[in-house]
């Protein structure tokens, strides 16, 4: 076992002890019980494991937990505040921008990063920004609508 790694997750200081090379995804899911980020491909093709590190979307299945030490990590579990959904969560819910919902946390986190950088994206920008994410159920058109609605409500 390696030394404890300090992880700053959703505003809280957490500490994990992880074997060398453990992915951030496994650390979040298995050690911190944050199972919102999902495993699906293990090679950065699907985006289901997306979380934010210092505001940037990353594929947590490819990032070693140790490399995230001391950085600001945001996961889907941190979006809701005092029982109030984040505007993107509310918009995904209002548009039912999901079917099985397995890809939803990844789409949400990537969209959070997108709207911070670009508060009013066009549909083309949304599609191109989220093209690295897979929704096998095919909720894509609703996801674009949900991101646009969230952007319009934020303004």
């Amino acid at each position, binding site marked *: 076992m390696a030394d404890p790694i300090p992880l700053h997750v959703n505003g809280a200081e957490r500490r994990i002890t992880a*074997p060398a*090379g*453990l992915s951030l995804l*496994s650390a979040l*899911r*298995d050690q911190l*019980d*944050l*199972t*919102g*980020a*999902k*495993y*699906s*491909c*293990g*090679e950065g*093709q*699907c985006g*289901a494991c997306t979380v934010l590190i210092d505001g940037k979307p990353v594929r947590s299945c490819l990032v070693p937990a140790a490399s995230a030490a001391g950085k600001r990590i945001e*996961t*889907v*579990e941190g*979006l*809701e505040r005092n029982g109030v*959904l984040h505007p993107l*969560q*509310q918009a*995904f*819910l209002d548009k*039912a921008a*999901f*079917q*099985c*919902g*397995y*890809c*939803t*946390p990844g789409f*949400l986190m990537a969209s959070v990063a997108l709207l911070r950088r670009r508060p009013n994206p066009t549909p083309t920008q949304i*599609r*191109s920004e*989220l*093209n*690295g*994410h*897979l*929704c*096998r*159920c*095919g*909720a*894509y*058109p*609703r996801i*674009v609508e949900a991101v646009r609605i969230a952007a319009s409500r934020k303004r």
Partner: protein
Amino acid sequence: MDPKTRYKIETFDIEPDRFEIFAPSAHRLEFSRREFFATLGAGILYVISAQDAAGQQPERIAMRLHLAPSGLITVLTGKVDIGQGLRTLLTQAAAEELRVPPHQIRIQTADTAITPDDGGTWASLTTPQTVPVVRRAAAALRQAGFQPQALQQTVASSVTLTDPKDWKILGTSLPTVNGRDIVTGRQQYGSDLKIEGMLHGRILRPPSYNATLTALDTSQATNLPGVRIVRDGTLAGVVAAGESTAAAALALLKPQWKESPLPDPSTLYDHFRKTAEAPVFQKGSRYPALLEAGAVADAMRTAARRHQTTYTAQYIAHAALECRSAIAVWEGRKLTVHCGTQAPQVVRRELAGAFRIPLADVRLIVSTIGAGFGSKHRGECELEAAALARAAGKPVRLAWSREDEFLAGYFRPAALVDVNTAVDANHRITAWDFHNYNSGAAGIAIPYTIPNYYCGFHKSASPLRQGSYRSLAAVANTFARESHLDELAHLASADPLQYRLRHIEDPRLRHVLEEGARLFPWPSRSKGAGLACTIEKDARLALFAQMESPAKVARLLLVFDCGAVLNPDNLRNQLTGALIQGIGGALFEAIRYDTRQVLTHRLSRYRLPRFADLPAIDVHLIDRRDVPPAGAGEAGITLVAPALANAIFSLTAERRRALPLSPSPAFKT
């Protein structure tokens, strides 16, 4: 006993296309009141077998509803939620008939210790089969005023269901009941579960497709702390306290394999022909493998013109985003498995058989599933987890990797379809001779009026493991039929829409075509437009497509009539998703393999539809409150390939008869 035969005898008929149910297990290996109330809490449990007026349904399905002192009503179903909206639809059905608000209803999905066996979650049966049963049970309970004594009388005298024209909750777009859990990340899928004290397993996979293990040197792997090597019949794996230790131990195993080559993929379709069996008529089957009328041979002889074509479809993968996982717990000789199967009772029987224990001693508790599309009908992962747990003497979690999904699961069957037709001097079709090799009987029936026809499904030997996929063989068969119809229209110099209408009597099918033509509009002024229509699982649908290039769809317009619509927004979501999924299989998805191994074993090698592939999509629903609703989770996928093939023909004058239609160069076989 063969699990298919067993299941068939004990429950109900399964379509012949469910190859995975016929297949042997992945490995050969040498309830009580307490459970109800532990899960549901105190209250009254009603077991209701409510027949309809004709005494027809629901044969053997007894519905279970539980009333808690708080007023919360739990509907127990053996079905599972795979993203099709099962919880929402059953909530609507129960709330409508009980006259209670939807938030007072809870749906308990498959837990074999407490829920009834109402069949696997497949074949779009939730709407036509489960919803009516829940409605009848709920209506009976309301009419009896929740009094058990009165309930017996109510059921005996049959119940009155709410007339669809008076629906207040059914027929509305009730939002997904677990939507908030989905957007907050709180929704628990099978792969999110943990159990106190569980260990982690890994399975040793062969380096080539059909290799078998002949020897295993475990000396190095056993040096790792806390690692247990498991060999049980044909299965080999490791168990350790953590996933990374299990992975490290697996890498230290030194196996020897006996390889056995696959037939050359370039000979696949010949292989199907060589190994084909004659179609056999099965009485009472949902998809008979043989349908015939008139005298095809005579009509062929006297034809003004004949047209003979062959269509093919490659193996494709389901690629549901959640990979399989299972946690197996043994208590003595009793086994509990937490998992994400679409067919809990099939897997339960498989496990009871594999471990030679009574069925009553196997309990499956199914979580919400990160989609299935037909991939999760067999207990490969559950069986492996249970074998590891039995050897380890502790609960074991086994989570499949994406590679496991590709290499140890099964694919949608590849297909070879011969279509041979005859027309008279007026270009009317007089004979239809249709043969599907290998992929299945679903969708061989013709919605056109043709006096002489022979439609048969020939079982063949498949080199790769194959099984159910969204709408089964209807994708390949509808592709062949609707492409061929377009070819006949072209040969007759007729408009493909008018040519179809000349052969269609069914008023609802005519209506979806005419409605689509009005909205699209058809005939299109631009090149690159194509259409297709079908009757699939009692639904009538027509799809109009506009292609920008042979590899890019610009627009899809679907007109869909499945009778009464239970939840319009959920139905639109399902149909849109089916169209998008259909684009993958139509244009570029294909499993590539060589004589040793499947080569497309990761998502970086297996292309799936993304935003960049997305056309503009319009879905028009025709809500017929007077027609009992047909299932709709699958049907939308069946028209994409033919509509796109027909659109490509309009664009390029090239007739493409092989799926995928436009494989990217790197993926071409």
